[in-house]
């Protein structure tokens, strides 16, 4: 049994060595006319594949055994669930998190605070996309377009009319939401896979327009000197401003979590989940499919727009290069890794995916490779995400 697996593993690694041979081993320089043979890479590939193969086999084997024993599969993440369900533990957990969030800028450097602010932005973006993908089950690959709309709304209004951050913040969200509805209308009839590709196309159209329509958006060179957020007319220095933005982000995260949480259990939230599970059954129950989908799109876009305004205000410079498809892919990875439909999951997913590459600089090259790998592996091994969303269930308990 074990011997057979090892033999199969060796064959698999041989196949992968063959597969990756031209791309991984050979590197040519067509101008200098030189060839580099990187044989050591073939060796790494063989060893790596073999180990991964055995790991996967071991994982499958254990899972089968667990199912045979009738054991409880849901173990990871249940610790957090239990903590959240118990009111006392939840209170403790939340207050500890609140204290950490409050004192963070005073104990860490400005750079760290800045990184944290970025991570928090992705938390909100993830939560926004979570409404569309996680709750309503509409795969949106052009989410970054709404983010761009928000950012450009602020940048342009600030540049031409000198409007301040606080005026544009709701405006950016609303304009992004309008774009969400504009995109939503035509794609309402489409099924999952078509929807994905149309939203992808939409995201690219927005980026290409921003890049090419120079008179409107200043093209690829972008817009600079965007005002930072103000606070009742007080001017901040650079460092104070970063700390201030950090606190604003914390506030935004709290508001978002609160709203999304309430939405989830509301009438529209339950309609989204019903839509995700079965469109036809959902319509049969009398839910207006159009309205439900449009609300999901526009609400998701609204959060993206708000974060876009924050982003423009934080970096004070934006250009179309910040809004590529990869950005959408990162946000999607966050939602998928954390667990579609789970708020805690998305928050943790965003923190892992954004902070990890920052602190493991050596690995940051492999960031996008890992994001792609995460999407595939999560779908195969843990489709519900790190922390799965627990559906509200009602139990009938007999009286003792």
């Amino acid at each position: 049994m074990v011997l057979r697996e090892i033999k199969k593993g060796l064959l698999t690694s041989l196949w992968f060595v063959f597969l990756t041979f031209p791309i991984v081993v050979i590197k040519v320089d067509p101008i200098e006319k030189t060839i580099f043979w990187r044989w050591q890479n073939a060796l790494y590939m063989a060893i790596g594949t073999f180990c991964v193969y055995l790991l996967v086999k071991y994982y499958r084997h254990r899972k089968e055994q667990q199912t045979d024993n009738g054991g409880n599969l849901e173990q990871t993440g249940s610790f957090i669930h239990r903590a959240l369900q118990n009111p006392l533990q939840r209170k403790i957990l939340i207050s500890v998190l609140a204290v950490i969030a409050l004192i963070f800028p005073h104990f860490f450097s400005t750079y760290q605070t800045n990184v944290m602010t970025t991570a928090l932005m992705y938390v909100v973006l993830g939560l926004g996309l979570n409404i569309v993908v996680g709750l309503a089950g509409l795969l949106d690959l052009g989410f970054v377009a709404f983010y761009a709309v928000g950012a450009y709304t602020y940048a342009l209004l600030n540049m031409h009319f000198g409007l301040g951050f606080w005026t544009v913040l709701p405006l950016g969200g609303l304009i992004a939401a309008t774009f969400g509805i504009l995109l939503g209308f035509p794609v309402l009839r489409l099924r999952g896979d078509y929807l994905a590709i149309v939203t992808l196309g939409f995201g690219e159209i927005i980026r290409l327009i921003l890049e090419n329509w120079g008179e409107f958006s200043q093209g690829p060179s972008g817009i600079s000197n965007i005002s930072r957020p103000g606070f009742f007319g007080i001017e901040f220095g650079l460092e104070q401003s970063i700390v201030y933005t950090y606190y604003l982000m914390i506030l935004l995260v709290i508001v978002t979590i609160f709203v999304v949480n309430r939405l989830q259990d509301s009438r529209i939230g339950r309609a989204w989940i019903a839509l995700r599970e079965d469109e036809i059954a959902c319509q049969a129950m009398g839910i207006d499919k159009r309205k439900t989908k449009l609300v999901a799109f526009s609400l998701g876009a609204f959060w993206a727009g708000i974060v876009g305004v924050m982003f423009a205000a934080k970096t004070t410079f934006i250009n179309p290069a910040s809004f590529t498809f990869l950005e959408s892919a990162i946000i999607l990875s966050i939602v998928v890794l954390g667990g579609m439909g789970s708020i805690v999951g998305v928050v943790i997913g965003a923190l892992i995916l954004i902070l990890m590459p920052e602190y493991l600089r050596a690995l940051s090259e492999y960031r996008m490779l890992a994001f792609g790998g995460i999407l595939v592996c999560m779908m195969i091994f843990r489709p519900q995400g790190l922390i799965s969303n627990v559906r509200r269930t009602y139990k009938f308990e007999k009286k003792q």
Partner: protein
Amino acid sequence: MDYFIELFFSGLTRGSIYALIALGYTMVYGIIGLINFAHGEIYMIGAFTAFIVATVLSIYGLPLLAIAIISGVAAVVWASAYGYTVEKIAYKPLRHAPRLSPLISAIGMSIFLQNYVLLAQTSDFLPFPRLIPDFAFMEPIVQIIGSTDLVILITTVVVMVLLTLVIKFTKIGKAMRATAQDRMMATLVGINVNNVISATFIVGSGLAAIGGLLIASHIGQINFYIGFIAGIKAFTAAVLGGIGSIPGAVLGSLVLGLTESFATGYVSSDYEDVFAFSLLVLILIFKPSGLLGKASNQKV
């Protein structure tokens, strides 16, 4: 008028390349109902393999014809191997999962393959060696249609005819059509559906690799990112023609290629990609079943 004809042929060339890629999308969609997002990346890997093999061989000083043939075969072999492996790793375990899962897995695979090539090779644009010489007999009309365009058109036609013959008359072709119609029924009459799906991926990837090789030698440079845009455009073409339909994919590709060529020639070249995307959105709004596709009702 000359300008018009020039644009027409350049559109036709573009369209044939899109057709080679779009066929892979449409065949896979026909059989397992999945948009294979990684297909554009397979095309890119095909082009990259051809680039590496061709450059190595030209450094060793082989004749041009030998280089063209060997690198073409290598591109097809490796791209097919990648297509096969991608299906086994990323799609096969998810065959009974909810619709969204294989789709996300496909997107992940696409990002993974892109960055795999980026890390293993380079992010620079690399000059692709010229594999197709200027034929002497093309001299008088070279203004209108170049030698490379001619080779592309001929290759595409030959490949299309071969593919049609394979699907119409061979055993595996019959099995493919049966599986596309009804997978369960195909299993019941003794078709090994797993093998058919693998074969579809292999054939689709091989076609994409031919497309990659041709377009790379036409444009003269490649990069790890070429698969993304080409993939979306080929998908647009497949949808335009009616996804799942093989003649539809070819027709859609030619329409898309000509539209793009005329639009960039007469309107503006800055918005080249916007035209394709807008076309995609318009089709999906007004005729989601495509030009030759059949509108299907979802059964409950």
